[in-house]
């Protein structure tokens, strides 16, 4: 058998381009339907698990799916914001505990999630190194962020500008990394968590600058009344919050008007959940309340329908490819007629001659199946990461 396999190997290696095309075709025939099924099943599992773990989400009126995806996976498309008063509304209802979420900025593509410490308790996130964020300007980073950016406790990260052309826009803020979160195998591993006030500072709602009452800032002062000092743009704004300048940071406007992208509501029980949902049924309400599990189930129903069509298409394509591959094998056998004749004439055994010819097909099928199995395993292993990337795109 070793000798036969050697001959098959030499034949396949000599006709390497033909072999490569055949193996690719066979791999795809096996992999596409199976891999797709694995990916869809994993998506369903992932999306459902995260959604089930998030009872209610409140956000500005608009696409419920966008709101859920952004709140659960911190997608790159920032949904419409609503006022912080919506957070207070839930908190004051005493029907559920409320967690604000503000996701607008990022550090080199990793989303900055402005929230409170309750978020981490709610998701069961643990600190793996360093400590929890404690003061303005500090952050804790997810395990994959730490690995990707090569940062740890004591290092710092800088928020990325929203647009390179936005010269008058938000200032990048340098944030100190207080800690690194334990691996959670979810989108939290890719996020940078800051206190929501720090996120508002990045948004320019709060800021710190030179003390205008000090003599050194006199050149920047345009006018000075009893309670109001007007300064020009030469006054230095801080882009890092330190021990020394932390006191100078302050916010302008009403807290209740500050933006949040969502509020996660964790009701005490079913009844509270139903009551809370009832409070958002008014069509004039600026906010909507959604049950992530329901939204995801709707999405999955659509995905499964699409999957059925795609799998049916893949199977048809696979059959066509298989027919083509069979034709190639048949033509190959015809082309090898003279070789078969030579092997017979010099005394090759009937079994050996048959196996030399069959081994080409068997080896191509075996390698194709092996590659398809490897790809399926890889999909199973890395599918979750791929799904998260797709959701964030």
């Amino acid at each position: 058998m070793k000798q036969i396999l050697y001959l098959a190997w030499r034949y396949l290696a000599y006709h390497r381009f033909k072999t490569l095309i055949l193996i690719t075709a066979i791999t795809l025939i096996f992999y596409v339907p199976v891999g797709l099924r694995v990916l869809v099943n994993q998506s369903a599992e992932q999306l459902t698990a995260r959604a089930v773990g998030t009872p209610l989400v409140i956000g500005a009126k608009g696409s419920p799916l966008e709101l859920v995806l952004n709140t659960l996976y911190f997608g790159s498309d920032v949904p419409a914001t609503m006022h912080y008063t919506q957070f207070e509304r839930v908190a004051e209802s005493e029907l559920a505990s409320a967690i604000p979420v503000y996701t607008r900025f990022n550090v080199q593509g990793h989303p900055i999630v402005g929230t409170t410490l309750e978020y981490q308790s709610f998701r069961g996130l643990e600190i793996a190194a360093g400590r929890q964020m404690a003061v303005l300007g500090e952050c804790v980073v997810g395990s994959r962020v730490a690995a990707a950016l090569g940062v740890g406790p004591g290092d710092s990260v800088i928020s990325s500008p929203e647009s390179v052309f936005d010269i008058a826009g938000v200032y990048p803020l340098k944030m100190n990394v207080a800690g690194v979160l334990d691996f959670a195998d979810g989108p939290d591993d890719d996020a940078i968590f800051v206190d929501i006030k720090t996120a508002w500072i990045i948004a320019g709602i709060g800021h710190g600058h030179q003390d205008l009452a000090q003599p050194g800032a006199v050149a920047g002062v345009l006018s000075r009344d009893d309670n109001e000092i007007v300064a020009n743009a030469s006054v230095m704004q801080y882009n890092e919050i330190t021990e020394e300048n932390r006191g100078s940071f302050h916010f302008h406007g009403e807290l209740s008007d500050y933006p949040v992208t969502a509020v996660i509501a964790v009701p005490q029980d079913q009844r509270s959940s139903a009551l809370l949902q009832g409070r958002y049924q008014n069509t004039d309400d600026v906010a909507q309340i959604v049950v992530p599990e329901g939204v995801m189930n709707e999405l999955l129903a659509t995905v499964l329908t699409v999957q059925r069509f795609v799998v049916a298409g893949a199977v048809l394509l696979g059959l066509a490819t298989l027919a083509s591959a069979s034709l190639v094998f048949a033509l190959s056998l015809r082309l090898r007629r003279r070789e078969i004749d030579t092997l017979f004439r010099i005394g090759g055994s009937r079994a050996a001659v048959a196996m030399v010819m069959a081994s080409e097909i068997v080896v191509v099928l075996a390698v194709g199946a092996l590659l398809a199995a490897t790809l399926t395993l890889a999909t199973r292993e890395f599918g979750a990461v791929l799904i998260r990337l797709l959701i964030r795109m």
Partner: protein
Amino acid sequence: MIAIRELEFRYATGGFRLEIPQLDVAAGESVAFIGPSGSGKTTLLNLMAGIVSPSRGSIDLGGVNIAALSDRHRRELRITKIGLVFQEFELLEYLSVLDNIVLPYRINAALVFDAAVWQRARQLAAEVGIADELKRYPRHLSQGERQRVAVCRAVLPQPSLLLADEPTGNLDPANKGKVLDILFDYARRTQTTLVTVTHDHDLLERFDRVVDFKEFQAFDEPDTGDVQ
């Protein structure tokens, strides 16, 4: 070595018939088969190799009647006792020169493939002047070199009978001489019986005996090597 008695061969489709009442070839003898196309020379080589079976009569090869053997035993006999050289060389394009030489050992378990085979293959290649070509593929060789590879493949299992079907038919005069020298040297050195079909009458003086197929009865169809 070879004793043919009352041999008759005809194709199932009819049209061609070969009749040989008696033909003997002694061990170590070199015999040339000559005759016009269609006289049955290649057919007789195929009958002697057990590639086709006679309709009647016997072909005794070293005490074994090939005609009475099963397909499996004829193949085993062919690979162990008979070396075949063809006009078109019939090398496998996807195998290197060395792999082509050792091919018989890979396609029938009747031959034992061991280290000695490799050594003998290299030695044979050196003897016929292709030692530097062992890793090359047939398409990179000249016609003469290809036929030398085919001869090495035929003699590697140390057969007692060499059957060559117009082995020099596709060669230029220089290579013709070289290939024949190799065949005759080997046959003489190892006392191997050599039976060759040829149309080249200039070569006949090198053979111990010449058999003209005019003396046998053959009808109609041309002699072709494609029969099985």
